[in-house]
């Protein structure tokens, strides 16, 4: 297993390099000028200088190389420094000072971070600011969805074609096919406008300090979580149901019954354990999308999370941000693919990686 993991991690390097190149070249080919939205009164030669200042004067391969260095060398340094000095996890370690800031320093030896063209601040800092909102909303929705979807899927399969299963089929079909920009607005109209139960706009500056502020946080999370969870639940519960149905007719289920096992044991131990194998994989593969945020839902509820950051960066032609965010998603997808494969090996004893 360890050998396999190491082999996969080594293989991930060329994969990620290729993805990085693709992202870089795609954005390079995309039309758009980062200084186009500047006032028209700026003279062309000044405009050209501004472009140069953004690093656009260099040839493509140099810019690609610089971005790679920034992403894989400079940003990890900043991250390690942050971990050892400020974070609670590794705070006990001796403080490190890998990163040499360019602020007021020697330009020849300092390290340049990936800067957002829009905000003139490091992309990673903005990501870290946006991440909590996304994790609160999308992460909670994912958890809620899993907690609902698994029992629903199990029971639907066990009582196939019962009224419960039929109702579940209908609701999941609706949940799967109604886009969040519709369901989002619908719940706003119902729960905010008509009933006035929940705020329609997510207040990202809100800090949880006591019980009341926690309740407020929960109230403002309810609607976006509801919208997202409906969609994710639909997906996972269908998957769970199909997987259970595959297993319920297997011979080993008959053996378990013939051994005199109770129905809960037969279904929740023998069948569920087998059925969870593909479902766990699907759940693991879905985790990168939590970090990716929910672009549309975040827009509807004004949650300024990662999804919102990406869409705004695209609109503003903020290429370093788009590039970096897209690449972070790619890294997460590669990592969670590996995790899903490893989980598969742990859950299914027939699969051994060596």
């Amino acid at each position, binding site marked *: 297993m360890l050998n396999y993991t190491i082999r996969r991690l080594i293989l991930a390097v060329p994969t990620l390099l290729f993805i990085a190149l693709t992202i870089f070249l795609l954005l390079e080919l995309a039309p758009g000028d980062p200084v186009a939205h500047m006032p028209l009164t700026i003279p062309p030669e000044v405009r050209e200088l501004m472009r140069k200042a953004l690093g656009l004067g260099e040839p493509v391969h140099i810019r690609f190389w610089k971005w790679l260095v920034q992403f894989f060398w400079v940003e990890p340094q900043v991250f390690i420094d942050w971990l050892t000095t400020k974070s609670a996890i590794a705070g006990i370690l001796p403080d490190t000072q890998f990163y040499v800031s360019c602020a007021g320093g020697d330009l020849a030896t300092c390290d340049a971070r990936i800067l957002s063209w829009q905000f003139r601040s490091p992309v990673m800092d903005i990501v870290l600011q946006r991440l909590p909102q996304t994790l609160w909303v999308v992460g909670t929705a994912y958890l809620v969805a899993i907690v609902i979807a698994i029992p629903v899927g199990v029971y639907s399969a066990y009582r196939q074609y019962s009224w419960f299963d039929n109702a579940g089929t209908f609701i999941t079909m609706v949940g799967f096919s109604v886009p969040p920009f519709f369901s989002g607005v619908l719940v706003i109209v119902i729960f905010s406008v008509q009933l006035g139960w929940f705020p329609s706009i997510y207040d990202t500056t809100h800090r949880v300090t006591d019980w009341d502020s926690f309740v407020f946080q929960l109230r403002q999370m309810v609607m976006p979580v509801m919208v997202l969870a409906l969609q994710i639940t639909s997906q996972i519960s269908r998957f769970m149901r199909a997987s259970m149905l595959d297993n319920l007719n*297997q011979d080993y289920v008959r053996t378990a019954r*013939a051994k005199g096992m109770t129905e809960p044991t037969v279904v929740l131990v023998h069948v569920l354990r087998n059925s969870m194998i593909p479902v766990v994989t699907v759940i693991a593969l879905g985790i990168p999308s939590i970090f990716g945020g929910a672009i549309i839902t975040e827009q509807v509820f004004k949650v300024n999370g990662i999804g919102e950051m990406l869409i705004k960066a695209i609109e503003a032609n903020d290429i370093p941000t788009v590039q970096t965010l897209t690449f972070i998603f790619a890294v997460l997808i590669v990592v969670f693919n590996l995790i899903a494969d490893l989980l598969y090996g742990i859950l299914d004893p027939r699969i051994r990686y060596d």
Partner: protein
Amino acid sequence: MPAGAQPILDVKGLRTVFATRQGEVHAVNSVSFDLYPGELLGVVGESGSGKSVTMMSLIGLLPSPPAEVREGQVLFEGIDLLKADAETLRRIRGARIGFVFQDPMTSLNPVFTVGFQLMEPLRKHMGMTKAQARARARELLELVGIPDAGRRLDDYPHQFSGGMRQRVMIAIALACDPKVLIADEPTTALDVTIQAQILELIKELRQKLGMAIIWITHDLGVVAEIADRVIVMYGGQIVEQAPVEALFEDPRHPYTRAHLQTVPHVRGPRAPRLRVIEGQPPILGAPPTACPFRFRCRHRFERCDRENPTRREVAPGHDAACFWSPEEERTAPVAAAGGAHA
């Protein structure tokens, strides 16, 4: 069959029906038989003759719907299993009646160790602790001839060969010392040498443990080797029942006779081609009102289309469900035809 002994399992008039999209299928029609302690009863018949469904009906192992046990009585240790509630049946399954199924490759749960699957019934039915169950599981694996039993408890089914897995299945079935073992084509999926080993094992275990066995198979060779008594099934009913020697020496039902002729012989002159019974077994949409074998029968006469023969005794302990009998070979069809005119 021991005269005067009480049967351990007494089945009367069992009828099982499946609801399908094309309507009802009457898979088991008025099946009656009994099983005596320590006896090995062979159940023979081709695919779809209702052998497995009969045995599954006894103990509530058929999925319902689509299956429905409509009529009958199954007496086991003084209870009618068909009237018993699900919980009572569950307590009997695996504890008092053990099962071995056909395909050892799929009958074990792939994600649990063999030890876990073997210890489950021990803990549930016998209330053993984990340690006790493990010790007993180890004994059971040794009993069914699995070498290095202690270590193999922690192995998964895929680490065993087909024959070894069937031994594990037998160990599970025997875990709680059942009074009856129902083996549903346990050697069909295995190759011949492994089959011989499993048969030897069953013979040996039967002597050691003394349970009654119902052995479902379509292989007459296997039946000849191990059974005491045989019932032959066709079209969801029992067409002949006899002690094993009587069945092979003097088969009475045309189906049994035809079936015996299909067995190729190793010795003697070589037959030009394999004998077969022409035609297909019936799928019954309604309870049969005529002999289900009539379309494939060489001795069919008018009465066979009108009436479903009931089993009648042809020799002590030997009965067959047929109007025709070998002694009446020449006279019977004429007499019966004459009778129809009257």
